[in-house]
C-alpha cells in the first residue's frame, strides 16, 4: 500500500507557510504601494480621490535622469560583472578542475562577513592614504594621492565586487555540466577557439548567463546602500529618491508612486534585455 504522507494527501498543505509569508510580506505591501500611489489626500489627511497626478509629476527631466542613471548603473554593473566572471567561470570549469573547490571556497568566504565590513574594507583600500594610493605612489605611477572615494568609480568598484558572485555561480554551474566533447567536436570540424565560444559554448550556457545577468541587473537597479556610501551625494539613483520620499514628511505616497513607476521601467527594460541577450546568444539557424 502506498505510504501516506502529508505532501501526498494534501499537496498544497506543505506550501501553506511559504504562501502566507509571501502574501504577508510581499504581495500585501506591494498592493498597498500600488493602491497608495493612485490615492490622493487633502492637507488635513482626508481622502479626496483617485488620480494619476503623482505619475505625471515624475515625467520631468530630473526624475527621468535618476531612472536613467539607475538603468545605466545596473547595465554597466551587469556587463562588467559578466566580463570578469565569465572567463573566471570558464577557467574554473574547464582548466581549474583540480582547485575548483578551493576557488569556490574563496568565492564564498566574503559572504561570511557583514556587508558593512566589506564597505569599510574598501574604504581602507580607496582612501587618500589607503592601500591603492600607497601602491600607485610606490610604483611611481602617481606622485600625489588620487581621491577615489565619493565617486562613480568607487561606486562601480564596490558594485562589481559585491555583485560578481551572483553572476559567477550560475554561469559556473552551467559550464561545469558542459560536455567537453562538444568543444572538441567543434575544433575537429574546423572551428577556432573564438568560433567555438561563439557558436557552441555561449549558446549552450545561455541559461546560466541570463540567470546570472538578471540576478545582478535587477537588484543593482534599486541599489541604495552602495551609491550612498561610496558615491557621496554626487549622483541620485532610484533607491536614493525612493528612500527620501518614503522617509520624508508626508511624501510617502510620492515614494509609492515613484517605486511603482520605476518598477514598470525595470520590468520593461528587463524584458527587452532578456530578449536581446537571448537573440544575441542564440545560434543562427539556417533560414529556409
Amino acid at each position, binding site marked *: 500500500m502506498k505510504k501516506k504522507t502529508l505532501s501526498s494527501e494534501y499537496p498544497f498543505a506543505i506550501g501553506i507557510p511559504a504562501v502566507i509569508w509571501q502574501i504577508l510580506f510581499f504581495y500585501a505591501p506591494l498592493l498597498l504601494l500600488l493602491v497608495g500611489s493612485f490615492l490622493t489626500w487633502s492637507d488635513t489627511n482626508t481622502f479626496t480621490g483617485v488620480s494619476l497626478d503623482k505619475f505625471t509629476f515624475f515625467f520631468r527631466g530630473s526624475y527621468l535622469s535618476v531612472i536613467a542613471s539607475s538603468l545605466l548603473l545596473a547595465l554597466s554593473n551587469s556587463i562588467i560583472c559578466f566580463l570578469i566572471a565569465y572567463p573566471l567561470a570558464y577557467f574554473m570549469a574547464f582548466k581549474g578542475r583540480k582547485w575548483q573547490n578551493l576557488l569556490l571556497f574563496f568565492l564564498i568566504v566574503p559572504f561570511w562577513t557583514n556587508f558593512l565590513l566589506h564597505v569599510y574594507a574598501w574604504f581602507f583600500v580607496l582612501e587618500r592614504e589607503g592601500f591603492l594610493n600607497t601602491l600607485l605612489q610606490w610604483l611611481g605611477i602617481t606622485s600625489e594621492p588620487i581621491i577615489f572615494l565619493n565617486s562613480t568609480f568607487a561606486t562601480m568598484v564596490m558594485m562589481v565586487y559585491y555583485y560578481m558572485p551572483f553572476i559567477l555561480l550560475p554561469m559556473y554551474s552551467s559550464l561545469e555540466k558542459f560536455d567537453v566533447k*562538444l568543444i572538441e567536436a567543434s*575544433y575537429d*570540424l574546423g572551428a577556432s577557439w573564438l568560433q567555438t565560444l561563439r557558436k557552441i559554448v555561449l549558446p549552450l550556457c545561455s541559461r546560466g548567463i541570463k540567470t546570472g545577468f538578471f540576478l545582478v541587473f535587477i537588484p543593482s537597479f534599486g541599489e541604495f546602500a552602495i551609491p550612498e556610501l561610496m558615491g557621496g551625494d554626487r549622483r541620485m539613483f532610484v533607491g536614493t529618491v525612493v528612500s527620501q520620499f518614503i522617509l520624508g514628511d508626508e511624501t510617502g505616497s510620492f515614494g509609492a508612486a515613484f517605486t511603482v513607476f520605476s518598477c514598470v521601467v525595470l520590468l520593461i527594460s528587463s524584458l527587452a534585455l532578456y530578449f536581446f541577450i537571448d537573440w544575441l546568444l542564440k545560434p543562427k539557424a539556417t533560414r529556409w
Partner: protein
Amino acid sequence: MRSIRLKGLKKSLEGGLVLNGIDLVIPSGKFFALLGPSGCGKTTLLRLIAGLEQADSGKIFLGERDITELPIHERPINIVFQNYALFPHLNVFDNVAYSLKLKKLPKELIKEKVLKILEAFHLERHVHKLTTQLSGGQQQRVALARAIVNEPDVLLLDEPLAALDFKLRERMLIELIELQDKLKTTFLYVTHDQFEALTVADQMAIMNPSGQIEQIGTPKEIYEFPSTSFVARFVGTTNILSGTLHQLDTDPHISIEGLGQFKLQVPQKREWMQEGCNALISIRPEKIFISKKEVKNFSNVVKGIVSSIVYHGRSTQYNVLLNNKSRLQVFEQNEEHFPQEVIDYDNEVYLYWQKENVTLLEQ
C-alpha cells in the same frame, strides 16, 4: 585519401605511459581497425592523430606532410565520437552544415551538399529535428554525416557503435563498410570489440595494455596466425598449451607433459625456436574435431572426458578435460546435414587437429 604514418609516438597521461613508441602505417583508402583491450591507449592514439592531444615525442605524417604540430582545426581529419557529441542546440541540418558554414561556402552549395548527404543516410525526414529527438541509430548517422560532409582525408571512428544494440550494430557495420567502399576515405576504426574489428577491417593492428602494437595484418592473418600469445588470446577464443620443442629441422613436434607429443608445422623458423626450449601452442576451438570414434587422416590426437557442453545456437561448445588436468574448448557447427554423433557429459572422446592449424608462440 592519404595515408597516416606514425613514428615513435610516445604519450604519458597523469604520470603513466599510455603510448610506448607507436610505429604504424595506416594505408590510404583502407578500412583500418585498431583493436585493443579497454585502457590500452587506443583512444589516446586516435586523439593524437586528430590533434586533440599533443604527443610527448614522435611524429605524425599525413601523406608526406608532417602534421605533428598542426592545430586540430587545420587538420583534414574528422572524428566520429563515441557518444557522437552532436550539438544539442542545433538541428540535424545545422549539425551537419557546421563545418561547411565555418568554411564560408555559399549558402546554396551548403544546402545542396548537406541535403545530399542526409538523403544518403536516410535522414531526409529529420532535417529540421533537434538531434535529441532522434533514435540512437539516427544520431549515429548524423554524427557520420557531420564528419564526412567536409570530405576529410581521414575519418577517425572512436568506438562509434558502442551505444547501439546488437542488431543495429551489425547493420551499421555493413553500412560503414559500404560507405568506406564508396568514399575510399581512409578509415581508422578504434574498438575493443574483436567482432567489429574483424568484420570491418581491410587491415588491423592489435594493441596491448602497455601501449604497444603487437601485430599488424589482415583480419585473417591476425586470427589464423597470431604472432604472440596476447594476440591469440585477445582475438577470438583459443586453447593455449605449453610444452618443449623438439627436432625443429627434421620432424618438428612439441611434447606436453602428461599428454605426449604433437606434430607442428614451422613455416618460418625464428631465433627463439631452439631444440628443447619452452613454447606455447594455440589451437582455435573450431579447428578441433571431436568424436567418440577413432578417425584417421589427422596429424594429432588427444584423449579426454567431456566436462561440460554449452549450446550456442549455431554451434555447440564442448569443454574437454585432458589427462594432465588442462582443458580444451571445442566448437562444433550445428549444421545437421547428416545425423550427428551424440556426445554427452562424461563421454570419453578423441580430439583431432591438423598440424597446419596450430600456431607456435614464444613463451
